[in-house]
């Protein structure tokens, strides 16, 4: 810990609170792990004795980010990433809450595992870590898990992680059952049969590279099926990672029909495209694959309009032995929790997405969807706060990233803007110097 539990006063900051569409220059006071006051000029009389005063002139102060999709190797693959190492990377990226995925070994599919992850995180992680639990036992897509008991144990949502539940009957029953518990189901929408041998987006470039393609229809068909089941069951549903314009049309129809549907897009699909695969760069192999520029632009517009609710990192640490392989044989996945905000600021600097909309998609919306107390700067809320310098230029050096694995598609990328301070529950857990 860099600092103790002293009250913290951030002064002269541009304070952005997307939960209230608030954008003002002023001060923010935190004490006892909670936000106390946010306003233009907190008088000296209102500042508790011994408070740490930090001048944030020309800086942004915003709610800590909530990363709705991160794969962590603990338990089972601690050599790739632990809750501790992931939390260090998260803190450096301004993420104060990690929503970890159940694709561990063993998977998080029973209440004891939810309990284990929460205890390990409490003891070793420097940011909040909240688990999603498996939707089906063993992530096999066959039998639903103990949704009631898992939710009571602390699971924030239910998902089979990077796998799709292909059996529509299983999905329907799980949605039906989850609705009774008001549980959220997050789903990776990709028909594995249509993915087949595909390893990158189905496009001319794939043809030139001699790589098998994955059609966007693999995603859209699954999403379409899911939304029909959501209409049937009236359950709460979250599309975990959408990547193409066709899916956005389906999503839009679902939302317009009044379904309780939300969706996320990964930082990779918002800032990279199929051309980034270049000469078989396995760090750019992700699932679903990076799409064409038209799809990427549609996705960016959807973030700007709010059609896409959430921007997440899709953080997936892969080691040398799974990435230093011929493209088709390499595992998909990219780390991203530490670079997510900086990479996303490209969209702000280019004028495509407002800072307010971006921060909303990275904090307020995830909190609302998952029913978490964060994602806001309202007085009384948890003191999960970040300070951002919008202008500082830097070049990503993967060796400097805090993740145990270095499979970053943003290695050597020139980025502008970054988190300079991350505060979790009123304590500074990261400071950029």
């Amino acid at each position, binding site marked *: 810990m860099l600092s103790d539990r002293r009250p913290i006063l951030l002064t002269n900051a541009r304070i952005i609170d997307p939960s209230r569409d608030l954008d003002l220059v002023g001060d923010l006071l935190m004490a006892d792990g909670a936000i106390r006051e946010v306003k233009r000029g907190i008088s000296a009389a209102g500042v508790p004795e011994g408070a740490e005063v930090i001048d944030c002139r020309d800086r942004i102060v915003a709610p800590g980010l909530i990363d709705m999709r991160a794969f962590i190797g603990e338990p089972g693959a601690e050599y790739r990433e632990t809750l501790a190492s992931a939390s260090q990377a998260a803190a450096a990226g301004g993420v104060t809450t990690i929503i970890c995925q159940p694709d561990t070994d063993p998977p998080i599919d029973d209440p004891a595992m939810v309990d284990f992850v929460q205890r390990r995180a409490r003891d070793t992680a420097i940011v909040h870590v909240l688990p999603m639990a498996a939707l*089906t*036992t063993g992530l096999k897509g*066959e*039998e*639903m*898990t*103990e*949704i*009631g*008991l898992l939710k009571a144990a602390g699971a924030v949502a239910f998902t089979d992680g990077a796998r799709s539940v292909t059996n529509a009957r299983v999905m329907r*029953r799980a949605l*039906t*059952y989850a*609705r*009774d518990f008001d549980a959220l189901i997050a789903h990776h929408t990709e028909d594995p049969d249509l993915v087949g041998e595909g390893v990158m987006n189905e496009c001319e470039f794939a043809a030139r590279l001699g790589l098998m393609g994955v059609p966007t229809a693999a995603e859209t068909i699954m999403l379409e099926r899911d939304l029909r089941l959501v209409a049937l*069951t009236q359950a709460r549903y979250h599309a975990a990672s959408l990547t193409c314009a066709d899916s956005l049309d389906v999503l839009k129809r679902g939302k317009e029909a009044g379904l309780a549907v939300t969706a996320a897009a990964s930082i990779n699909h918002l800032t990279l495209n199929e051309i980034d695969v270049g000469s078989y760069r396995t760090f750019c192999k992700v699932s679903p694959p990076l799409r064409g520029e038209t799809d990427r632009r549609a996705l960016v517009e959807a973030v700007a309009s709010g059609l896409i609710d959430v921007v997440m990192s899709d953080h997936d640490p892969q080691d040398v032995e799974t990435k230093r392989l011929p493209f088709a044989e390499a595992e998909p996945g990219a780390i991203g929790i530490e670079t997510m905000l900086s990479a996303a600021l490209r969209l702000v600097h280019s004028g495509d997405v407002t800072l307010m909309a971006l921060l909303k998609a990275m904090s307020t919306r995830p909190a609302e969807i998952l029913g978490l107390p964060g994602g806001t700067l309202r007085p009384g809320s948890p003191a999960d706060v970040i300070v951002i310098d919008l202008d500082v230029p830097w070049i990503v050096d993967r060796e400097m990233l805090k993740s145990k694995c270095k499979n970053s598609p943003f290695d050597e990328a020139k980025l502008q803007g970054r988190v300079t301070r991350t505060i979790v529950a009123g304590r500074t857990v990261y400071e950029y110097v």
Partner: protein
Amino acid sequence: MNIAPKPSFVLHQRHLLGIEGLSRDEIIGLLDLAEEFVAINRQVEKKRASLRGRTQINLFFEVSTRTQSSFELAGKRLGADVMNMSVGASSIRKGETLIDTAITLNAMHPDILVVRHQSSGAVALLARKVGCCVINAGDGSHEHPTQALLDALTIRRNKGQVERLIVAICGDIAHSRVARSNIILLNALDARVRVVAPSTLLPPGVERLGVEVYRDMREGLRDADIVMMLRLQRERMNGSFVPSEQEYFAYFGLDEKKLGYAKPDALVMHPGPMNRGVEINSTVADGARSLIREQVEMGVAVRMAVLEALSRKLPSA
């Protein structure tokens, strides 16, 4: 004690295929008749002669212990010659064989056929192919009329009435023939019927069946007079309809705490056989408020009443 059942009471149908189709008066008539047999069954001399010379065949395509023995005892006490035929489910080639069986049996001139079958509607199909009287002892997820009658009799004897009572039927409504027969019968007698279950165990459209639907035991049992638990088949657990026995018991299993949501004098019923620790715990099942053993006793009386009433429709020469 020698009670002569009222000879005036007859059913208007030749068969008893379901509660559906019985009038309120017929239901009450059967319950009144059964009440008389309760007294007879508690005597040393239980034998009557109303079915003397008649042949009753219990044709069970699905394994059953209590229903089959209850019907057997009921028939014998009324003087019938009773034969049990258990047809293993594995040996049946559906449809064609069912009708072949019916034709074969019909040739033996039985007077009464008591039939249980795993498919909804199978008993009605068989009834169309035989000349004798047919009693449905449970067809698939459709109806189990004698169970609903014995449940109503049990309720009436303990509460003095059925009208206006709040009866909460809890558990696997979707697959339960007991639930369907009870919903119809209790509605006919003006009880307030609730069903309580997770959505996966409720048939879509259940709210149109004349019940109040609850997905939470606390709400569903509030002010209930009768808590009727249903058996959860093992094949419905383990992730297919509910995640596990543990989770089912945690949210829908009847224990002292959940029973506390009902009225202080609420009574507990279960058609059996019970899965202890799944839909009900032993403290409640064996407790002072449990009517489960009385239900079994009423079963014999109700089946005697049904046999007696239907026998009055049989050709006598």
